[in-house]
């Protein structure tokens, strides 16, 4: 129960994403005092079929003398300890969490290593280097696709296993942690290309305006007039589809005091449709507009609901578009900029959900229910609905800039220590997100939701996706990531 402003700091995934993200950021900052607290992180290498060896496919990020197995074991122990402390604080079933986490962790690494096989990963320009005659050139996207596919197979065909893993399969927690790690990357990017990041952030405001002021009324009207839904159901569905998915559905339902069953049903729809968006849109955008990376990234941020699916789709788009550009356009874009376009848009949208819910609550009390004076809306509701992981992201972002700006030696040391955090650790959390988002997606839950599912599909693919693309085109056309 959220009684006070600090309620939930030790018992919600949102806050624990902040604590885990800050822990790793502080570990990298400790390098300024000569410590190496991030170099143990394992990372996978590109390898070629027929030449598999543990030393060839795994290596530590910094501690060069370490055997890869030791590096991987330390990676497991550190992340297991941190997540188990969080799970204990959040009152999860600790035994189930530990067992589920261990299975997910091991599966994630196996899939990640498989995805690094050269035939799946490397671009055509590197075929000669790896002695290849053919390849799919999917970049890191293959690992993500494989993790998603295996997760979906478990979630839909091995439901007992999915149930066993569910205590640890927390895609939203994993991705929020990864986004806090990404605060380092946007800090690096801000130093590299301040103008680009400023433009990205400012256009995010416009995107937010579109999501709230354009999508929401259209979907609400569609629900009321065409599908004859109740006011409550239309409002909750409109928020879920047009703003930021589950969190918007819950915030809106709470604001208008809807029965809890309404946002729960809408949340099931959001999670399942987010999977369709994640599977379809990155490949589709890469195919239709291979030379508009930032437009595509921003369009994803406006269209794909839930942070997990959006970040996952952004990461997939980043990989697919860079691999495609290298193969077909002869240009090598820097990694992470397309993902950042997707995330920046989404984070802006997330940040204002509390304010939007507050406005809706006022409208409901004073205009719809007409009970002014009896029921009061507390300003604290805005804070309770604010996504706390954004605080971690912003804190890491601005702290990185502040520290790195204090001198070239300091910047170099910090960059080296922070690279495993925003690199391998962040990618590992993305991989865990892909796998667990598949595990918790059960398409059979769509049964019996005919009318709502139809409305969702029409609104998403017929209204939101095309308008979002148009808006992204207006604001971002021609913007290009830096090249290597």
């Amino acid at each position, binding site marked *: *129960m*959220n*009684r006070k402003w600090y309620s*939930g700091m030790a018992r*919600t*995934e*949102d806050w624990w994403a902040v604590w885990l993200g800050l822990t790793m950021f502080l570990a990298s900052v400790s390098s300024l005092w000569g410590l190496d607290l991030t170099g143990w992180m394992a990372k996978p290498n590109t390898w070629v079929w027929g030449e598999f060896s543990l030393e060839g496919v795994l290596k530590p990020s910094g501690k060069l003398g370490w055997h890869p197995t030791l590096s991987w074991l330390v990676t497991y122990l550190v992340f297991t300890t941190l997540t188990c402390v969080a799970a204990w604080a959040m009152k999860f079933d600790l035994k189930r969490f530990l067992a589920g986490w261990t299975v997910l962790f091991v599966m994630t690494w196996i899939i990640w290593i498989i995805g690094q096989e050269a035939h799946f990963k490397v671009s055509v320009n590197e075929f000669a280097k790896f002695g290849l005659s053919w390849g799919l050139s999917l970049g890191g996207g293959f690992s993500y696709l494989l993790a998603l596919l295996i997760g979906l197979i478990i979630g839909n065909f091995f439901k007992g296993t999915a149930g066993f893993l*569910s205590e640890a399969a*927390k*895609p*939203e*927690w994993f991705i929020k942690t990864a986004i806090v790690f990404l605060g380092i990357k946007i800090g690096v990017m801000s130093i590299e290309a301040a103008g680009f990041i400023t433009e990205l952030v400012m256009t995010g405001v416009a995107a937010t305006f579109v999501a709230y002021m354009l999508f929401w009324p259209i979907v609400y009207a569609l629900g009321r007039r065409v599908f004859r839904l109740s006011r409550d159901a239309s409002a909750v569905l409109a928020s879920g589809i047009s703003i930021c*998915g*589950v*969190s918007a559905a*819950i*915030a809106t*339902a*709470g*604001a208008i*005091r809807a*029965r*809890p*069953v309404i*946002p*729960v049903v809408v*949340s099931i729809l959001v999670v399942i449709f987010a999977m369709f968006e994640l599977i379809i849109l990155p490949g589709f955008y890469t195919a239709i507009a291979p030379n508009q990376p930032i437009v595509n990234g921003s369009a994803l941020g406006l269209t794909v609901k*839930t942070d997990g699916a959006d970040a996952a789709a952004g990461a997939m788009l980043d990989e697919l578009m860079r691999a495609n550009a290298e193969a077909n356009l002869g240009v090598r874009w820097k990694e992470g900029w397309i993902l950042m376009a997707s995330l920046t848009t989404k984070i802006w949208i997330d940040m204002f959900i509390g304010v939007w819910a507050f406005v809706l*609550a006022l409208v409901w009390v004073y205009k719809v*229910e007409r*009970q002014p*004076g*009896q*029921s*009061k*809306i*507390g300003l*604290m*509701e805005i804070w*309770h*609905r604010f996504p706390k992981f954004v605080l971690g992201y912003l804190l890491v972002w601005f702290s990185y800039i502040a520290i790195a700006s204090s001198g070239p030696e300091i910047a170099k040391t910090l960059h080296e220590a922070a690279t495993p955090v925003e690199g391998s650790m962040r990618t590992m959390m993305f991989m865990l997100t892909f796998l667990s988002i598949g595990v*918790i997606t059960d398409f059979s839950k769509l049964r019996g939701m005919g009318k709502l599912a139809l409305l969702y599909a029409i609104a998403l693919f017929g209204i939101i996706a095309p308008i979002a693309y148009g808006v992204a085109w207006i604001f971002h056309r021609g913007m290009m990531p830096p090249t290597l």
Partner: protein
Amino acid sequence: MKADLEVRLVHDGINWIAYHQSFEAFGETLLELDQELTRCLLDRQLFPENSHVTVFMVFDYNCIPTWIRQYASHYFNRYIRLDLKSPISAAQ
């Protein structure tokens, strides 16, 4: 905002329920719940008749399935101002 009374608010699928150590109030809608709550307060004489009471209803998030908590961890809290008029004085 200062409240005179705090209750735990849940929804059991049919009714909104306000829990307090000295009573439980039920209502299919929040309006019905508020009326029932007023009656409970009057019955138990927790506050003087014909006074105004501000009640803080804290929603118990355990009513929401746990898998949703990673996406959002707050439903709503609500402050209501109840006018504790007894049925007799209200009729007059």
